[in-house]
Protein backbone atom coordinates (compact mmCIF):
# COMPACT_ATOMS: atom_id res chain seq x y z
CA UNK A 1 0.00 0.00 0.00
CA UNK A 2 0.88 3.63 -0.40
CA UNK A 3 3.32 4.94 2.19
CA UNK A 4 2.80 8.12 4.16
CA UNK A 5 5.29 10.79 3.07
CA UNK A 6 7.69 12.77 5.29
CA UNK A 7 8.55 16.10 3.72
CA UNK A 8 11.12 18.59 5.05
CA UNK A 9 10.45 22.21 4.21
CA UNK A 10 13.27 24.65 3.41
CA UNK A 11 12.85 28.43 3.39
CA UNK A 12 15.05 30.20 0.87
CA UNK A 13 15.80 33.91 0.50
CA UNK A 14 18.05 35.24 -2.26
CA UNK A 15 19.31 31.73 -2.96
CA UNK A 16 20.31 30.91 0.65
CA UNK A 17 18.48 29.13 3.45
CA UNK A 18 16.94 31.62 5.87
CA UNK A 19 18.10 29.41 8.74
CA UNK A 20 20.97 27.04 8.17
CA UNK A 21 20.32 23.37 8.77
CA UNK A 22 22.68 21.31 10.89
CA UNK A 23 24.87 18.79 9.14
CA UNK A 24 26.17 15.58 10.77
CA UNK A 25 29.24 17.33 12.18
CA UNK A 26 27.07 20.18 13.52
CA UNK A 27 28.20 22.55 10.80
CA UNK A 28 25.45 24.78 9.45
CA UNK A 29 24.46 24.37 5.82
CA UNK A 30 23.23 27.56 4.19
CA UNK A 31 23.16 26.27 0.64
CA UNK A 32 19.69 24.91 -0.24
CA UNK A 33 21.21 22.43 -2.71
CA UNK A 34 23.44 20.88 -0.04
CA UNK A 35 20.52 20.85 2.41
CA UNK A 36 18.38 19.05 -0.18
CA UNK A 37 21.15 16.50 -0.67
CA UNK A 38 21.39 15.94 3.09
CA UNK A 39 17.65 15.28 3.40
CA UNK A 40 17.65 13.07 0.28
CA UNK A 41 20.37 10.97 1.98
CA UNK A 42 18.37 10.92 5.24
CA UNK A 43 15.35 9.43 3.48
CA UNK A 44 13.08 12.41 2.77
CA UNK A 45 10.24 11.34 0.48
CA UNK A 46 9.91 14.74 -1.11
CA UNK A 47 11.19 18.26 -0.40
CA UNK A 48 9.31 21.55 -0.29
CA UNK A 49 11.06 24.86 -0.95
CA UNK A 50 9.54 28.19 -0.01
CA UNK A 51 11.13 31.12 -1.74
CA UNK A 52 10.65 34.22 0.36
CA UNK A 53 12.86 36.43 -1.80
CA UNK A 54 11.29 39.85 -1.65
CA UNK A 55 12.71 41.67 -4.63
CA UNK A 56 11.56 40.47 -8.02
CA UNK A 57 14.91 41.09 -9.74
CA UNK A 58 16.48 38.47 -7.51
CA UNK A 59 13.88 35.81 -8.25
CA UNK A 60 15.91 34.18 -11.01
CA UNK A 61 18.42 33.11 -8.36
CA UNK A 62 15.78 30.62 -7.21
CA UNK A 63 15.46 29.20 -10.72
CA UNK A 64 19.16 28.43 -10.63
CA UNK A 65 18.74 26.77 -7.22
CA UNK A 66 15.89 24.65 -8.61
CA UNK A 67 18.06 23.56 -11.54
CA UNK A 68 20.91 22.53 -9.25
CA UNK A 69 18.58 20.70 -6.85
CA UNK A 70 17.12 18.75 -9.80
CA UNK A 71 20.63 17.63 -10.76
CA UNK A 72 21.38 16.51 -7.22
CA UNK A 73 18.37 14.66 -5.82
CA UNK A 74 16.17 12.06 -7.49
CA UNK A 75 12.96 12.42 -5.55
CA UNK A 76 10.13 14.86 -6.23
CA UNK A 77 10.28 18.42 -4.93
CA UNK A 78 8.02 21.44 -5.05
CA UNK A 79 8.59 25.17 -5.04
CA UNK A 80 6.27 27.77 -3.58
CA UNK A 81 6.41 31.44 -2.73
CA UNK A 82 6.03 34.23 -5.23
CA UNK A 83 4.34 32.07 -7.90
CA UNK A 84 1.90 34.56 -9.41
CA UNK A 85 1.16 33.39 -12.93
CA UNK A 86 1.62 30.71 -15.56
CA UNK A 87 5.01 32.07 -16.56
CA UNK A 88 6.33 31.78 -12.98
CA UNK A 89 5.08 28.18 -12.90
CA UNK A 90 6.63 27.35 -16.24
CA UNK A 91 10.08 28.62 -15.19
CA UNK A 92 10.10 26.54 -12.01
CA UNK A 93 8.81 23.37 -13.71
CA UNK A 94 11.20 23.65 -16.65
CA UNK A 95 14.07 24.13 -14.20
CA UNK A 96 13.19 20.70 -12.78
CA UNK A 97 10.61 20.97 -9.96
CA UNK A 98 7.77 18.41 -10.08
CA UNK A 99 5.26 20.70 -8.46
CA UNK A 100 4.57 24.35 -7.82
CA UNK A 101 2.51 25.61 -4.94
CA UNK A 102 0.28 28.65 -5.05
CA UNK A 103 -1.11 30.34 -1.98
CA UNK A 104 -2.14 34.03 -1.91
CA UNK A 105 -2.06 34.23 -5.71
CA UNK A 106 -4.79 31.57 -5.86
CA UNK A 107 -6.88 33.42 -3.27
CA UNK A 108 -6.65 36.62 -5.32
CA UNK A 109 -7.09 34.88 -8.64
CA UNK A 110 -8.46 31.31 -8.36
CA UNK A 111 -8.26 30.72 -12.14
CA UNK A 112 -4.50 30.35 -11.77
CA UNK A 113 -5.18 26.84 -10.41
CA UNK A 114 -7.16 25.84 -13.48
CA UNK A 115 -4.67 27.45 -15.86
CA UNK A 116 -1.77 25.66 -14.18
CA UNK A 117 -3.57 22.31 -14.16
CA UNK A 118 -4.41 22.64 -17.85
CA UNK A 119 -0.87 23.58 -18.81
CA UNK A 120 1.11 21.16 -16.63
CA UNK A 121 -1.40 18.64 -15.22
CA UNK A 122 -3.18 18.66 -11.88
CA UNK A 123 -0.38 16.63 -10.28
CA UNK A 124 1.90 19.68 -10.66
CA UNK A 125 -0.37 22.13 -8.85
CA UNK A 126 -0.33 22.26 -5.06
CA UNK A 127 -2.65 24.63 -3.24
CA UNK A 128 -0.97 26.10 -0.18
CA UNK A 129 -3.52 27.11 2.47
CA UNK A 130 -2.75 29.17 5.57
CA UNK A 131 -5.55 28.70 8.06
CA UNK A 132 -6.56 30.26 11.40
CA UNK A 133 -9.21 29.05 13.82
CA UNK A 134 -12.04 31.58 14.24
CA UNK A 135 -15.57 31.62 15.68
CA UNK A 136 -18.09 29.66 13.65
CA UNK A 137 -20.25 32.11 11.69
CA UNK A 138 -22.49 32.22 8.67
CA UNK A 139 -19.53 33.28 6.57
CA UNK A 140 -17.09 30.80 8.14
CA UNK A 141 -19.22 27.72 8.89
CA UNK A 142 -16.22 25.42 9.49
CA UNK A 143 -14.69 27.78 12.05
CA UNK A 144 -11.46 27.90 10.03
CA UNK A 145 -10.61 30.92 7.92
CA UNK A 146 -8.10 31.37 5.12
CA UNK A 147 -5.45 33.99 5.90
CA UNK A 148 -2.77 35.42 3.61
CA UNK A 149 0.40 37.49 3.96
CA UNK A 150 1.86 35.15 6.56
CA UNK A 151 -1.35 35.14 8.59
CA UNK A 152 -1.67 38.90 8.87
CA UNK A 153 -4.66 39.32 6.56
CA UNK A 154 -8.00 37.59 7.02
CA UNK A 155 -9.80 36.88 3.76
CA UNK A 156 -13.34 36.03 4.86
CA UNK A 157 -12.98 32.67 3.04
CA UNK A 158 -13.98 29.45 4.77
CA UNK A 159 -11.10 26.94 4.73
CA UNK A 160 -13.25 23.87 4.05
CA UNK A 161 -15.06 25.60 1.21
CA UNK A 162 -11.75 26.75 -0.28
CA UNK A 163 -10.21 23.27 -0.14
CA UNK A 164 -13.17 21.78 -2.05
CA UNK A 165 -13.18 24.69 -4.47
CA UNK A 166 -9.46 24.25 -5.18
CA UNK A 167 -10.03 20.56 -5.90
CA UNK A 168 -12.83 21.48 -8.29
CA UNK A 169 -10.58 24.04 -9.99
CA UNK A 170 -7.94 21.38 -10.63
CA UNK A 171 -5.46 21.40 -7.74
CA UNK A 172 -3.73 18.02 -7.39
CA UNK A 173 -2.76 18.33 -3.75
CA UNK A 174 -3.24 20.58 -0.73
CA UNK A 175 -0.54 21.73 1.65
CA UNK A 176 -2.50 22.70 4.74
CA UNK A 177 -0.72 24.99 7.17
CA UNK A 178 -2.20 25.88 10.54
CA UNK A 179 -1.01 29.38 11.45
CA UNK A 180 -2.05 28.71 15.08
CA UNK A 181 0.17 25.63 15.34
CA UNK A 182 3.00 26.90 13.15
CA UNK A 183 6.22 27.44 15.08
CA UNK A 184 4.85 26.08 18.36
CA UNK A 185 6.38 22.59 18.02
CA UNK A 186 3.38 21.43 20.08
CA UNK A 187 1.82 19.25 17.41
CA UNK A 188 -0.25 19.64 14.27
CA UNK A 189 -3.83 20.98 14.25
CA UNK A 190 -5.48 17.55 14.11
CA UNK A 191 -9.13 18.65 13.92
CA UNK A 192 -8.44 20.96 11.00
CA UNK A 193 -6.33 18.36 9.18
CA UNK A 194 -8.95 15.63 9.53
CA UNK A 195 -11.71 18.01 8.48
CA UNK A 196 -9.98 18.98 5.24
CA UNK A 197 -8.48 15.59 4.42
CA UNK A 198 -11.75 13.72 4.86
CA UNK A 199 -13.67 16.14 2.67
CA UNK A 200 -11.47 16.26 -0.43
CA UNK A 201 -10.32 13.44 -2.69
CA UNK A 202 -6.85 14.86 -3.36
CA UNK A 203 -3.88 14.23 -1.04
CA UNK A 204 -3.35 16.56 1.94
CA UNK A 205 0.04 17.46 3.41
CA UNK A 206 -0.26 18.58 7.05
CA UNK A 207 1.92 21.52 8.05
CA UNK A 208 2.62 23.52 11.19
CA UNK A 209 3.43 22.38 14.70
CA UNK A 210 5.72 19.37 14.29
CA UNK A 211 8.11 19.08 17.24
CA UNK A 212 8.53 15.37 17.84
CA UNK A 213 7.84 12.06 16.08
CA UNK A 214 4.63 11.51 18.11
CA UNK A 215 3.16 14.56 16.38
CA UNK A 216 3.68 12.98 12.98
CA UNK A 217 2.14 9.70 14.17
CA UNK A 218 -0.95 11.63 15.34
CA UNK A 219 -1.46 13.66 12.20
CA UNK A 220 -0.96 10.66 9.90
CA UNK A 221 -3.56 8.62 11.81
CA UNK A 222 -6.06 10.81 13.71
CA UNK A 223 -5.52 13.73 11.33
CA UNK A 224 -5.82 11.45 8.30
CA UNK A 225 -3.04 13.35 6.49
CA UNK A 226 -1.34 11.76 3.49
CA UNK A 227 1.96 13.44 4.25
CA UNK A 228 3.58 15.48 7.02
CA UNK A 229 5.68 18.58 6.56
CA UNK A 230 8.53 19.08 9.04
CA UNK A 231 11.04 21.87 9.63
CA UNK A 232 12.78 22.80 12.90
CA UNK A 233 12.75 19.30 14.35
CA UNK A 234 15.08 18.14 11.59
CA UNK A 235 16.80 21.44 10.73
CA UNK A 236 18.35 21.65 14.21
CA UNK A 237 19.08 17.93 14.04
CA UNK A 238 16.96 17.16 17.09
CA UNK A 239 15.85 14.19 14.96
CA UNK A 240 16.91 12.75 11.64
CA UNK A 241 14.29 11.71 9.11
CA UNK A 242 15.46 8.11 9.48
CA UNK A 243 14.78 8.27 13.25
CA UNK A 244 11.30 9.66 12.65
CA UNK A 245 10.54 6.91 10.15
CA UNK A 246 11.80 4.26 12.55
CA UNK A 247 9.47 5.63 15.23
CA UNK A 248 6.51 5.59 12.81
CA UNK A 249 7.33 2.02 11.85
CA UNK A 250 7.10 1.00 15.50
CA UNK A 251 3.65 2.63 15.55
CA UNK A 252 2.68 0.55 12.48
CA UNK A 253 2.57 3.61 10.25
CA UNK A 254 3.98 2.72 6.86
CA UNK A 255 6.63 4.97 5.34
CA UNK A 256 9.35 4.26 2.78
CA UNK A 257 12.13 2.58 4.78
CA UNK A 258 14.64 1.87 2.03
CA UNK A 259 16.41 4.60 0.10
Amino acid sequence: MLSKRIIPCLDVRDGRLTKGIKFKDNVDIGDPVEAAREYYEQGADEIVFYDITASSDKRDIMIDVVRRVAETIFIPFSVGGGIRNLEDMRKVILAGAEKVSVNSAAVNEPEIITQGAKAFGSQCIVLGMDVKKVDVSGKIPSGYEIVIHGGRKFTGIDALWWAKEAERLGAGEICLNSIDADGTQNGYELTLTALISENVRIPVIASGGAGKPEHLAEVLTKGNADAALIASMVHYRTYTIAEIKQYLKEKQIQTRMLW
Partner: protein
Amino acid sequence: MIAIINYNAGNITSVARALQNIGQEFIITDDIKKLDAASHVIFPGVGAAGEAMAYLREKKIDLWLKNYIKTGKPLLGICLGTQIILDYSEENDTKCIGLVAGSTKRFPDKLTSGGQALKIPHMGWNSVTFHHSHPVFQNISPDAEFYFVHSYYPAPSDDSAVLGITDYGINFCSVLAVNNLVAMQFHPEKSGRPGLQILRNFCAWGGNA
Protein backbone atom coordinates in the same frame (compact mmCIF):
# COMPACT_ATOMS: atom_id res chain seq x y z
CA MET B 1 23.26 5.53 -27.94
CA ILE B 2 20.31 5.97 -25.59
CA ALA B 3 17.50 8.07 -27.03
CA ILE B 4 14.78 9.75 -25.00
CA ILE B 5 11.68 10.37 -27.08
CA ASN B 6 10.70 13.97 -26.74
CA TYR B 7 7.04 14.73 -27.12
CA ASN B 8 4.66 17.29 -25.80
CA ALA B 9 4.30 15.62 -22.44
CA GLY B 10 6.05 17.47 -19.69
CA ASN B 11 9.06 16.55 -17.74
CA ILE B 12 11.56 14.93 -20.08
CA THR B 13 14.37 16.78 -18.32
CA SER B 14 14.09 14.76 -15.12
CA VAL B 15 14.85 11.54 -17.03
CA ALA B 16 17.76 13.31 -18.73
CA ARG B 17 19.18 14.44 -15.38
CA ALA B 18 18.93 10.93 -13.97
CA LEU B 19 20.86 9.57 -16.96
CA GLN B 20 23.49 12.28 -16.48
CA ASN B 21 23.82 11.23 -12.87
CA ILE B 22 24.53 7.60 -13.81
CA GLY B 23 27.06 8.77 -16.41
CA GLN B 24 25.03 7.70 -19.41
CA GLU B 25 25.16 9.61 -22.68
CA PHE B 26 21.88 10.20 -24.48
CA ILE B 27 20.01 12.26 -27.02
CA ILE B 28 16.55 13.81 -26.66
CA THR B 29 14.66 13.92 -29.92
CA ASP B 30 11.29 13.73 -31.67
CA ASP B 31 12.97 13.10 -35.05
CA ILE B 32 12.49 9.50 -36.22
CA LYS B 33 15.64 9.69 -38.36
CA LYS B 34 17.70 10.39 -35.25
CA LEU B 35 15.81 7.72 -33.31
CA ASP B 36 16.93 5.16 -35.92
CA ALA B 37 20.49 5.43 -34.58
CA ALA B 38 19.47 4.50 -31.02
CA SER B 39 20.49 1.26 -29.33
CA HIS B 40 18.02 1.84 -26.46
CA VAL B 41 14.89 3.98 -26.42
CA ILE B 42 13.23 5.58 -23.39
CA PHE B 43 9.61 6.64 -23.77
CA PRO B 44 8.78 8.88 -20.80
CA GLY B 45 5.89 11.22 -20.29
CA VAL B 46 3.71 13.15 -17.95
CA GLY B 47 0.48 14.56 -19.29
CA ALA B 48 -2.72 13.48 -20.98
CA ALA B 49 -3.11 10.60 -23.45
CA GLY B 50 -5.09 12.53 -26.08
CA GLU B 51 -2.59 15.32 -26.62
CA ALA B 52 0.36 12.98 -26.42
CA MET B 53 -1.03 10.67 -29.12
CA ALA B 54 -1.85 13.60 -31.41
CA TYR B 55 1.76 14.79 -31.17
CA LEU B 56 3.22 11.29 -31.69
CA ARG B 57 1.05 10.74 -34.80
CA GLU B 58 2.07 14.08 -36.23
CA LYS B 59 5.74 13.12 -35.81
CA LYS B 60 5.02 9.52 -36.98
CA ILE B 61 6.61 8.24 -33.78
CA ASP B 62 3.71 5.81 -33.20
CA LEU B 63 4.52 3.93 -36.42
CA TRP B 64 8.24 4.21 -35.78
CA LEU B 65 7.82 2.53 -32.37
CA LYS B 66 5.91 -0.38 -33.94
CA ASN B 67 8.86 -1.05 -36.20
CA TYR B 68 11.46 -0.40 -33.51
CA ILE B 69 9.98 -2.99 -31.19
CA LYS B 70 10.41 -5.63 -33.94
CA THR B 71 14.17 -4.99 -34.08
CA GLY B 72 14.57 -6.56 -30.63
CA LYS B 73 16.30 -3.47 -29.23
CA PRO B 74 15.27 -2.44 -25.68
CA LEU B 75 12.37 -0.07 -25.06
CA LEU B 76 11.59 1.48 -21.67
CA GLY B 77 8.16 3.01 -21.02
CA ILE B 78 7.59 5.34 -18.08
CA CYS B 79 4.22 6.54 -16.71
CA LEU B 80 2.22 7.96 -19.65
CA GLY B 81 4.78 6.28 -21.93
CA THR B 82 3.63 2.99 -20.42
CA GLN B 83 -0.08 3.71 -20.67
CA ILE B 84 -0.10 4.67 -24.34
CA ILE B 85 1.80 1.63 -25.61
CA LEU B 86 -1.44 -0.30 -25.00
CA ASP B 87 -4.28 -0.31 -27.57
CA TYR B 88 -6.54 2.19 -25.90
CA SER B 89 -6.79 4.66 -23.00
CA GLU B 90 -9.93 5.72 -21.18
CA GLU B 91 -8.23 9.09 -20.71
CA ASN B 92 -9.71 11.37 -23.38
CA ASP B 93 -11.15 8.17 -25.03
CA THR B 94 -7.88 7.75 -26.93
CA LYS B 95 -6.78 5.12 -29.45
CA CYS B 96 -3.16 4.40 -28.56
CA ILE B 97 -0.08 2.81 -30.12
CA GLY B 98 -0.91 -0.84 -29.52
CA LEU B 99 2.50 -2.40 -28.89
CA VAL B 100 0.86 -4.51 -26.17
CA ALA B 101 -2.76 -5.73 -26.16
CA GLY B 102 -4.90 -4.10 -23.49
CA SER B 103 -6.16 -0.76 -22.28
CA THR B 104 -5.45 1.98 -19.77
CA LYS B 105 -8.22 2.43 -17.21
CA ARG B 106 -9.17 5.05 -14.66
CA PHE B 107 -9.08 4.08 -10.98
CA PRO B 108 -12.62 3.39 -9.75
CA ASP B 109 -14.25 6.46 -8.15
CA LYS B 110 -14.91 4.73 -4.86
CA LEU B 111 -11.53 3.27 -4.06
CA THR B 112 -11.11 2.05 -0.49
CA SER B 113 -8.64 0.12 1.60
CA GLY B 114 -9.54 -1.22 5.05
CA GLY B 115 -12.66 0.97 5.09
CA GLN B 116 -10.63 4.13 4.32
CA ALA B 117 -11.42 6.11 1.17
CA LEU B 118 -8.33 6.40 -1.02
CA LYS B 119 -7.24 9.58 -2.76
CA ILE B 120 -6.91 10.05 -6.50
CA PRO B 121 -4.31 10.60 -7.94
CA HIS B 122 -2.37 7.70 -6.47
CA MET B 123 0.50 9.95 -5.41
CA GLY B 124 3.57 8.92 -3.47
CA TRP B 125 5.71 5.88 -2.71
CA ASN B 126 4.44 2.35 -3.14
CA SER B 127 5.98 -1.09 -3.58
CA VAL B 128 5.84 -3.58 -6.43
CA THR B 129 5.35 -7.35 -6.14
CA PHE B 130 7.22 -9.01 -8.98
CA HIS B 131 5.90 -12.21 -10.59
CA HIS B 132 9.35 -13.24 -11.77
CA SER B 133 12.86 -11.83 -12.09
CA HIS B 134 13.89 -9.55 -14.93
CA PRO B 135 17.30 -8.12 -15.94
CA VAL B 136 16.01 -4.53 -15.60
CA PHE B 137 15.07 -5.20 -11.96
CA GLN B 138 18.31 -6.86 -10.95
CA ASN B 139 19.74 -5.76 -7.60
CA ILE B 140 16.47 -4.14 -6.58
CA SER B 141 15.32 -5.10 -3.07
CA PRO B 142 11.78 -6.52 -2.85
CA ASP B 143 11.21 -3.88 -0.14
CA ALA B 144 12.11 -0.98 -2.44
CA GLU B 145 9.41 1.61 -3.06
CA PHE B 146 8.88 3.76 -6.12
CA TYR B 147 7.32 7.15 -6.80
CA PHE B 148 3.89 7.03 -8.44
CA VAL B 149 1.64 9.85 -9.55
CA HIS B 150 -1.31 8.84 -11.75
CA SER B 151 -5.08 8.49 -11.98
CA TYR B 152 -5.06 5.85 -14.75
CA TYR B 153 -3.34 2.47 -14.81
CA PRO B 154 -2.28 0.01 -17.51
CA ALA B 155 -4.31 -3.21 -17.87
CA PRO B 156 -2.72 -5.58 -20.40
CA SER B 157 -5.18 -8.22 -21.66
CA ASP B 158 -2.63 -11.02 -21.44
CA ASP B 159 -1.53 -11.83 -17.87
CA SER B 160 1.85 -12.98 -19.11
CA ALA B 161 2.65 -9.32 -19.90
CA VAL B 162 2.35 -8.41 -16.21
CA LEU B 163 5.75 -8.38 -14.49
CA GLY B 164 4.76 -6.57 -11.30
CA ILE B 165 1.65 -5.48 -9.46
CA THR B 166 0.97 -2.74 -6.91
CA ASP B 167 -1.79 -2.51 -4.32
CA TYR B 168 -3.82 0.67 -4.22
CA GLY B 169 -7.31 -0.45 -3.26
CA ILE B 170 -7.05 -2.73 -6.27
CA ASN B 171 -4.03 -4.68 -7.48
CA PHE B 172 -2.99 -3.06 -10.73
CA CYS B 173 -0.22 -3.84 -13.20
CA SER B 174 2.59 -1.43 -12.29
CA VAL B 175 5.30 -3.06 -14.42
CA LEU B 176 4.76 -4.84 -17.70
CA ALA B 177 7.34 -6.71 -19.74
CA VAL B 178 7.12 -8.37 -23.15
CA ASN B 179 10.33 -9.52 -24.85
CA ASN B 180 12.49 -6.39 -25.41
CA LEU B 181 9.90 -4.07 -23.87
CA VAL B 182 9.75 -3.14 -20.20
CA ALA B 183 7.37 -0.45 -19.00
CA MET B 184 6.49 0.91 -15.59
CA GLN B 185 3.78 3.14 -14.18
CA PHE B 186 6.06 4.72 -11.57
CA HIS B 187 8.89 7.19 -12.21
CA PRO B 188 12.32 5.53 -11.86
CA GLU B 189 13.93 8.95 -12.40
CA LYS B 190 12.21 10.16 -9.20
CA SER B 191 12.52 6.97 -7.15
CA GLY B 192 15.86 7.60 -5.47
CA ARG B 193 18.62 4.99 -5.64
CA PRO B 194 16.45 2.00 -6.62
CA GLY B 195 15.09 4.10 -9.49
CA LEU B 196 18.57 5.03 -10.69
CA GLN B 197 19.53 1.34 -10.49
CA ILE B 198 16.61 0.46 -12.80
CA LEU B 199 17.81 3.04 -15.33
CA ARG B 200 21.37 1.70 -15.06
CA ASN B 201 20.10 -1.86 -15.59
CA PHE B 202 18.05 -0.79 -18.59
CA CYS B 203 21.02 0.93 -20.24
CA ALA B 204 23.08 -2.25 -19.82
CA TRP B 205 20.29 -4.55 -21.03
CA GLY B 206 20.50 -6.22 -24.44
CA GLY B 207 16.75 -6.74 -24.74
CA ASN B 208 16.52 -10.43 -23.87
CA ALA B 209 14.22 -11.04 -20.94
